[in-house]
């Protein structure tokens, strides 16, 4: 009998495998085999396998498994017997028949041998995978696997050193590269690799290897390399004669074909690596470039980008990555947000301060873009800079504009850019056409050669390819690295990796291979993977649980098989698909109707979280838009919110795109009223964005550095008002006051004072509001609507300060400024109705609000309806308080939640007048809560008193 534990547990005798049963049954067998001819006590089994179970149940189970194993072994007369020997059981098996025992014996002999290579090779050849691979759920198996894994690593290091002793540095370079890639903190392996590189005449690569070790230790563990490593590094630097092999190899060995690099993923990429190195050298001389990797999916673009970045970093450069491109669930300009944050974390002092501030608080797009370009230049002056962006075919237009600008401005300073674009995507050509052509260096990404394919097979399958296998795979896959790897894994898993199988294999493309690999997974696992695919990016376990209705344990179990199949990877607290082609394959595996419903589920799950982050808002918008057949126009408010968020980074085109999508969806909403309501909430935003984005385009191309308000007074005011009503009044005041600190044209000064005065009014900061609104009158703002509003807000401030005469004067001024213009009159009427409601003048309020309220399509009309309902309630209409609630709900849903606490207090007063004390009390509490959230504070004295005294103060006597 032969027992394999260095891999999935198995046992065979005379070519016949034993059926060892399920997990715990195999675990029982493995524990007995590891202790062959020694007694394993019953209590140890219980502790190892059923530690949480009551002993009676554990013993019952254990006995059943032992009984079962006994029957299995009894079927073969030559198989060992399972004997009962108190206090446990013994497997009467020669220990030498167990591979673990043989492995340990060979290692022990190698330690004492002058030439240990043969012994070590035999020992390592006993391995068929992770030790006890199928028992990893069992603690003792994990511990034993860890112990054996450590022994194996030691053996591999010994083998590397033994090869160095015999002068076979080339083998050490190839094997050492793989070893350190898999074990990045094993210094002994790194030292062997570095010495191998040095002895093959690659001093700089030897130093780069040790630099990677140093960085990895520092970044991941906060450690410095060991003294031996530092000594080796110093020795390599000064060409220490002691590092020479003894005796030196008589013949310089040529490098094996297809092993130009140490990394499996970089097989066949020598020409591209050489091009990267040439470009790097040129960049050091001040000639930067845009490295472009354009190839089909699975060609290895991301791997090569990573290699380029590693080489720049190894030479002491800074590499920054724009993340979030192509995930479809990230806010606008996100790649550059991540780059700025990365640079901010690396640079000393407040060098990144201006860019960070502009990203967070706004300003013109020109200023933002320039500040980012300046930041990159500042970083480059400290260390050579490389900017990396993957999946450029999916980049948002504003990010692409900034990339084009940055390339144009920075390659002349020696900055390197590296981008990957998937060929065959509709946007690929247009994206590349945007970038400066004379800066482009295209990296070759040909298919793998036959030898390289053979090497992939060897490393994936753990054995050399059979006759004709590499050639057949090469023909089938045209050398596409992903396709080669996946097809090899599939055939290995189907246990038919031979040339005939490759030729007969039905898959005509990598997607078909992936689909067949997915077919091998449990259905529940595939269901979860489908959800991950539709999510569009990394997904956390709780999201998967909520979408599928499974508990977290079931989710983790189901994902485990996908992790083992290397179709899923762990990503922070959640999971992500290993490659975008896996996502595509999964998406195409479900019908459109099913995709729609799953998108709706994903949206519901995210929405149920309550407060959403900007990333969540974008994700919900995307899912709801894709779920339109079942979700209708539910995406509209989220698309609008995503556009608002994009505006905070001045990503106007992305905002415009989101709003256009929202408008299109709104146009397909059910019911005319709903269509109109949704369209209203989008159109006002879209108008602002279009005014603003037009200014931005001319600004970017023309290089005009005029202050923001001068670019478009109305647009600037609208943009800030839009930002303010989402509860960011403080930001708006700060932006306006910063603008006032710069030289401005008179109209822009008036606009900035108005914006600051308006925002301070809403915040309830009356003195500051009055001061700004007075200053706004010193110049002609040139926009009639702003002139009306400035006077009207001055009236409100005066009333709140108790100066009714000034309030009346300003109120009349607002009306006069409106003149005969219908829209301005409507605006002035609304403001006047506000003032009268604040004063408690129901009759006057109704008089000014009534006409305005009839226009249900305008924002003024929506707001006026609350005032009309309040006035009618105060006039004794018992149903008007409910109408006030309904009107308030429309305001809240309009996307312009201005004066929300004020309206809630009016509704409360209306209900109090109707005798609904409880409802009134709740509304007062809600007013207070909304005020705290939005920063919108009602200072009208009468309503302040109502809020303070509650319903008692307003109840009808």
């Amino acid at each position, binding site marked *: 009998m032969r027992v394999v534990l260095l891999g999935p547990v198995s046992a065979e005798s005379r070519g016949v495998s034993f059926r060892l049963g*399920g997990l715990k049954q195999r675990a029982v067998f493995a524990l007995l085999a590891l202790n062959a001819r020694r007694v394993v006590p019953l209590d140890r089994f219980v502790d190892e396998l059923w530690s949480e179970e009551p002993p009676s149940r554990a013993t019952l189970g254990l006995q059943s498994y032992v009984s*079962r194993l006994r029957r299995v072994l009894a079927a073969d007369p030559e198989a060992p017997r399972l004997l009962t020997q108190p206090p446990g059981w013994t497997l009467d098996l020669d220990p030498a028949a167990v591979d673990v025992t043989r492995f340990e014996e060979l290692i022990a002999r190698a330690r004492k041998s002058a030439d240990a290579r043969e012994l070590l090779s035999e020992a390592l050849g006993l391995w068929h995978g992770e030790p006890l691979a199928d028992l990893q759920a069992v603690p003792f198996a994990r511990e034993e696997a860890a112990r054996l894994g450590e022994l194996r690593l030691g053996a591999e290091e010994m083998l590397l050193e033994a090869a160095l002793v015999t002068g076979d540095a080339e083998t050490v370079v190839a094997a050492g590269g793989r070893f350190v890639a898999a074990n990045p903190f094993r210094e002994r392996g790194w030292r062997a690799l570095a010495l191998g590189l040095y002895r093959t005449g690659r001093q700089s690569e030897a130093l780069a290897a040790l630099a990677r070790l140093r960085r990895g230790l520092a970044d991941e563990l906060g450690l410095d390399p060991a003294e031996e490593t530092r000594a080796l590094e110093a020795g390599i630097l000064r060409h220490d004669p002691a590092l020479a092999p003894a005796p030196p190899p008589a013949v310089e060995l040529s490098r094996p074909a297809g092993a130009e690099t140490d990394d499996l993923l970089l097989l066949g990429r020598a020409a591209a690596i050489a091009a990267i190195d040439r470009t790097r050298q040129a960049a050091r001389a001040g000639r930067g470039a845009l490295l472009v990797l354009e190839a089909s999916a699975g060609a290895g673009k991301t791997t090569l980008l990573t290699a380029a970045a590693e080489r720049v970093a190894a030479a002491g450069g800074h590499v920054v990555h724009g993340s979030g491109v192509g995930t479809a669930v990230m806010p606008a300009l996100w790649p550059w947000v991540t780059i700025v944050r990365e640079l901010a974390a690396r640079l000393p002092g407040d060098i990144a301060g201006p860019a960070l501030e502009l990203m967070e608080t706004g300003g013109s797009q020109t200023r933002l873009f320039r500040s980012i370009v300046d930041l990159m230049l500042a970083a480059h002056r400290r260390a050579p800079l490389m900017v990396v962006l993957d999946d450029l075919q999916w980049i948002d237009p504003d990010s692409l504009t900034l990339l084009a600008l940055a390339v144009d401005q920075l390659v002349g300073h020696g900055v390197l850019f590296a981008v990957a674009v998937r060929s065959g995507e509709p946007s690929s050509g247009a994206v590349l056409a945007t970038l400066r052509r004379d800066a482009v260096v295209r990296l070759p990404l040909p298919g793998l050669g036959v030898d390289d394919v053979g090497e992939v097979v060897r490393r994936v399958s753990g054995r050399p390819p059979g006759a004709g296998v590499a050639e057949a795979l090469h023909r089938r896959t045209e050398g596409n690295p992903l396709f080669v790897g996946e097809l090899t894994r599939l055939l290995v898993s189907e246990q038919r990796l031979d040339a005939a199988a490759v030729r007969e294999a039905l898959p005509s493309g990598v997607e078909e291979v992936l689909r067949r690999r997915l077919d091998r997974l449990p259905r529940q696992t595939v269901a979860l993977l489908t959800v991950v695919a539709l999510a569009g990016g990394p997904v956390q376990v709780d999201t998967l649980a909520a*979408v599928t*209705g*499974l508990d977290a*344990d*079931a989710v983790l179990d189901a994902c485990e098989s996908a992790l083992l199949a290397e179709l899923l990877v762990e990503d922070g607290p959640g999971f992500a698909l290993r490659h975008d082609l896996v996502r595509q394959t999964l998406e195409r595996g*479900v019908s459109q*109707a099913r995709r729609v419903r*799953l998108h709706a589920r994903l949206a519901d799950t995210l929405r149920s979280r309550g407060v959403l982050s900007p990333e969540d808002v974008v994700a919900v918008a995307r899912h709801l838009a894709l779920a339109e057949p079942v979700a209708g126009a539910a995406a509209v408010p989220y698309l609008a919110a995503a556009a608002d968020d994009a505006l905070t980074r001045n990503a106007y085109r992305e905002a415009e795109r989101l709003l256009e999508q929202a408008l299109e969806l709104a146009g397909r909403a059910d019911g005319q009223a709903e269509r109109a309501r949704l369209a209203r909430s989008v159109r006002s935003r879209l108008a602002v964005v279009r005014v603003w984005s037009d200014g931005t385009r001319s600004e970017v191309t023309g290089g005009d550095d005029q202050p923001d308000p001068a670019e478009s007074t109305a647009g600037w005011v609208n943009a800030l008002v839009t930002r303010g009503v989402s509860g960011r009044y403080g930001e708006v005041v700060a932006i306006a006051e910063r603008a006032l600190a710069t030289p401005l044209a008179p109209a822009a000064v008036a606009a900035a004072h108005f914006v600051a005065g308006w925002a301070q009014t809403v915040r309830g900061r009356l003195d500051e509001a009055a001061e700004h609104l007075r200053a706004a009158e010193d110049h002609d703002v040139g926009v009639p609507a702003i002139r009306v509003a400035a006077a009207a807000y001055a009236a409100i401030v005066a009333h709140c300060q108790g100066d009714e005469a000034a309030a009346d004067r300003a109120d009349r001024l607002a009306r006069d400024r409106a003149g005969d213009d219908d829209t301005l009159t409507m605006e002035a009427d609304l403001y006047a109705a506000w003032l009268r409601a604040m004063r408690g003048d129901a009759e006057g309020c109704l008089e000014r609000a009534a006409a305005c309220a009839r226009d249900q399509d305008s924002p003024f009309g929506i707001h006026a309806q609350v005032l009309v309902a309040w006035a009618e309630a105060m006039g004794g209409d018992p149903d008007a308080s409910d109408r006030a609630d309904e009107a308030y709900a429309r305001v809240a849903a309009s996307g312009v939640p201005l004066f929300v606490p004020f309206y809630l207090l009016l509704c409360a007063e209306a209900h109090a007048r109707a005798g609904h004390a409880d409802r009134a009390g709740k509304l007062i509490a809600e007013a207070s809560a909304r005020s705290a959230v939005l920063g919108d504070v009602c200072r009208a004295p009468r309503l302040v008193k109502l809020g303070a005294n509650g319903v008692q103060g307003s109840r009808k006597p």
Partner: protein
Amino acid sequence: MTTVLRRMPAGTAIGWELVDIAAPPGTPAIGVAVTVTDADGIARAVALTPPLPELVRELVAALRRTDAIALALSADEPAVHDGLRCEDVEHVGRALIVRF
């Protein structure tokens, strides 16, 4: 491709629903099982609806995550046997026992 087995606790019995997570709201479960776990740790399937092979396969996998030491099913239904082809099944009278 989008079916999962959900656990629906309900008193001493546990309901198991094989559902299509991409089905329209209100769509009935594809299959339903009810198990009761006795004091001896054996889960007994007291109700099973078609499609039995798939439901039984998923049920065994799900019960392995529970404290149950075995699953007992009625041997009367031939389709149950299909669902247990990959399992070590014991026949005890008219019951099938899958030990975990």
